[in-house]
């Protein structure tokens, strides 16, 4: 036990007496069912997201014989990423970087305009939590029934409902974990292998891993993920300003709140608590914008029902900005301000990245050539006095068919080429066939008898031409030899 000072210990005891602790029990959230346009939109987005996630790996795409026919496939072992008619190689990874930058800036832009729309509608944590809550509600009943059962004694009724709920959760979690694997392997094949026990070990490991994370995060952790684990809520405030639309309780209209039956000056809020009961993170939106709020807007639907029943105007809770709220409180008219330096910078950055990416993608070469000079020996002198340099050449064929490449060399007069392994007579032109979707690697020997070597290095230019399409690429290399006597270093 660590020693602490008497004063510290006293303060500690005092805190505990006052009920102040460094650790708090989790407050269970029992969100109530809600109906309305916001809820319907949220269901629609949920169904769309999950359909895409579960169904996409099964979409087929014909790429010709012997090649994967899955529309989206991240083939890790063969280092290829297939996305419909696009095929990316590891060296194209910067397209992924660009997409991630666009996604990040896009998220900033949406957040600065509409608050945490991502969190409330499309974040996987929200989507699966929503789905799991729906199942919970179907099996265990709505908020009040669940609270009653959880508070009451353990009975057969409680047990079968809990068991059924967790079984359903695990089933969906398994389906989710299994679908993840299908993005990395041919879906029908990996499914067959999975159930016949012949799939690779990582398939089982990752299916189990994502089953477990889905079950734990969506079933048990829920809003704790958003509040305690996710970094985004912590810094998303930096994207918000007084012109951002967020889920807002119009306090100038609602306050002072109170029951309609009690006398005194009244705002529109009757303090019924409907907004708190439906909140999936268990907060009170009337306390203002806060870290835990995922901006899902379910409280809007809940409040509008109450307002309609009481014949009061709708939208006591609505999407609005801080600036508008201040203006409305003064009774002024408001107009949205979409164009702000912040949004323009985000939109501008996004456009720039998008244009750069599109141009880079549209003009990306389908053939590539690279020559790496031998490190040792730098050059070899042969009996006739000529110099020979060795290179490892790589011929990239992304054309989607077998390609016949024609390689020529320039820059050094009389340079002749020969492939080391084939050993044909030196020629000034080589023809090499590279199979579809592969990189041809060869050792190339270039011989020349330059009159002068200068400081020991001459520029050498390789040219590779695709005989079918006529597309050609050049590569600048060096031809090395002994420095001429008297050349300055």
């Amino acid at each position, binding site marked *: 036990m660590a020693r602490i*000072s008497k*004063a*510290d210990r006293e*303060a*500690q005891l005092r*805190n505990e007496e*006052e009920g*102040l*602790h*460094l*650790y*708090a*029990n*989790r407050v269970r959230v029992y969100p109530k069912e809600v109906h309305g346009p916001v809820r319907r939109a949220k269901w629609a987005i949920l169904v769309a997201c999950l359909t895409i996630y579960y169904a996409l790996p099964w979409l087929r795409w014909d790429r010709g014989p012997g090649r994967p026919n899955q529309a989206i496939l991240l083939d890790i072992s063969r280092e290829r990423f297939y996305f419909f008619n696009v095929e990316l190689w590891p060296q194209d990874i910067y397209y992924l970087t660009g997409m991630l930058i666009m996604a990040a800036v896009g998220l900033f832009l949406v957040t600065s305009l509409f608050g945490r729309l991502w969190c409330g509608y499309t974040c996987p944590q929200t989507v699966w939590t929503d789905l799991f809550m729906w199942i919970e509600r179907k099996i265990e009943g709505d908020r009040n029934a669940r609270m009653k059962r959880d508070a009451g004694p353990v009975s057969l009724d409680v047990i079968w409902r809990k068991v059924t709920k967790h079984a359903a959760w695990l089933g969906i979690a398994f389906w989710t974990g299994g679908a993840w694997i299908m993005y990395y392997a041919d879906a029908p094949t990996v499914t067959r292998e999975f159930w016949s026990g012949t799939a690779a070990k990582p398939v089982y490991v990752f299916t189990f891993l994502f089953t477990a994370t889905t079950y734990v995060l969506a079933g048990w952790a829920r809003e*704790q993920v958003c509040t*305690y684990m996710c970094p985004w809520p912590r810094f998303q405030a930096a994207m918000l300003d007084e012109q951002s639309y967020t889920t807002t309780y119009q306090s100038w209209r609602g306050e002072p709140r109170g029951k309609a039956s009690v006398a005194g000056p009244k705002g529109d809020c009757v303090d019924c608590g409907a907004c708190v009961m439906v909140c999936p993170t268990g907060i009170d939106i009337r306390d203002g914008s806060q870290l835990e709020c995922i901006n899902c807007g379910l409280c809007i639907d809940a409040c509008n029902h109450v307002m309609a029943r009481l014949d009061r105007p709708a939208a006591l809770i609505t999407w609005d900005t801080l600036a508008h709220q201040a203006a409305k409180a003064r009774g002024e008219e408001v107009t949205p301000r979409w164009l702000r330096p912040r949004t323009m910078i985000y939109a501008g950055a996004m456009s720039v990245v998008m244009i750069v990416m599109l141009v880079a993608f549209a003009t990306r070469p389908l053939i590539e050539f690279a020559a790496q000079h*031998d*490190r*040792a*020996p730098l050059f*070899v*002198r*042969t*009996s*006739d*006095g000529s110099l*020979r340099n*060795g290179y490892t050449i790589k011929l990239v064929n992304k054309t989607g068919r077998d390609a016949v490449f024609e390689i020529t060399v320039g820059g050094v007069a009389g340079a002749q080429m020969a492939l*080391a*392994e084939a*050993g044909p007579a030196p020629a000034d032109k080589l023809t090499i066939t590279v199979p579809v979707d592969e990189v041809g690697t060869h*050792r190339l*020997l270039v011989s020349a008898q330059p009159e002068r070597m200068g400081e020991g290095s001459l520029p050498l230019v390789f040219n590779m031409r695709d005989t079918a399409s006529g597309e050609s690429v050049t590569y600048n290399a060096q031809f090395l030899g002994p420095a001429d006597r008297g050349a300055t270093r």
Partner: protein
Amino acid sequence: MPTKIEKDIISGQDTTGHEWDGVKELNRPLPKWWLYVYIATVIYSVGQFVIYPSWPGISGYLHGTAGWSQRGDVEQAVAAVGRQRSGYMDKIAAMPFDQIRADGQLYNVALTAGRIAFANNCQPCHGANGTGSLGYPALGDDVWLWGGSYGDVQKTITYGIRSDHADTRTSQMPAFGAVLKPDELDAVTDHVMALYGTPTPGANVALGNKVFEESNCAACHGDKGQGNPEQGGPRLASKVHLYGADRASVRAQIANPRMGMMPAWNTRLDPATIKSLTLYVHQLGGGQ
């Protein structure tokens, strides 16, 4: 040290009572499950401590109940590669060179084995990838003292040159410094320089020719200096020279020749490795 717990006006929350230069900390208690996760990781670490190697001692360490070690992992991996490799190496030992070359996978295995064996055994003299240096032949060029075919190279590696093996390749050049007069030596030097392709102006061509003929240089080097790989006679009509191409070096080599030696490798390397080395050296650029 906690001093006074206050209620923060803006957030309505209590402070922890800690204060640093006027900065106070809000008490936002962590959820208990977070603490439990922390405790679980501590318990996990105890298990890890018991199962895996964990604590150093004076003359050893705590091995852990699983008996795992990085060294053991490496040994297993090496053994696995060895098992895989032995199949290939048996094939390489049994098959003739041309068949190995025709089998792409086997050829690649042989080149890799050869490259590694070369770096371990040959590189000290011949240089990285057979670069060569003064007195040590470059292996990538097209000049061979003892022939550049697969069989020639294999024999050279197996028995060496001027080694202590009975079947070694060997050749000897007499020290002509003790036989020839200085002007004869100069003349034959100029004759060799002319064969090299760098004739000396004002050389005594007639005397050079005569000495080259009378000293029987052609028996090994050929009448036009073309060399004779059968008996290790170096080629003179070439731009590649083992002991230097300047006149002083050539003269010294005639007067008092240096003759290098190469050990017989069959005492250190198995036949499959020697064959792999042969294939590797052959493809450096000069194989015949």
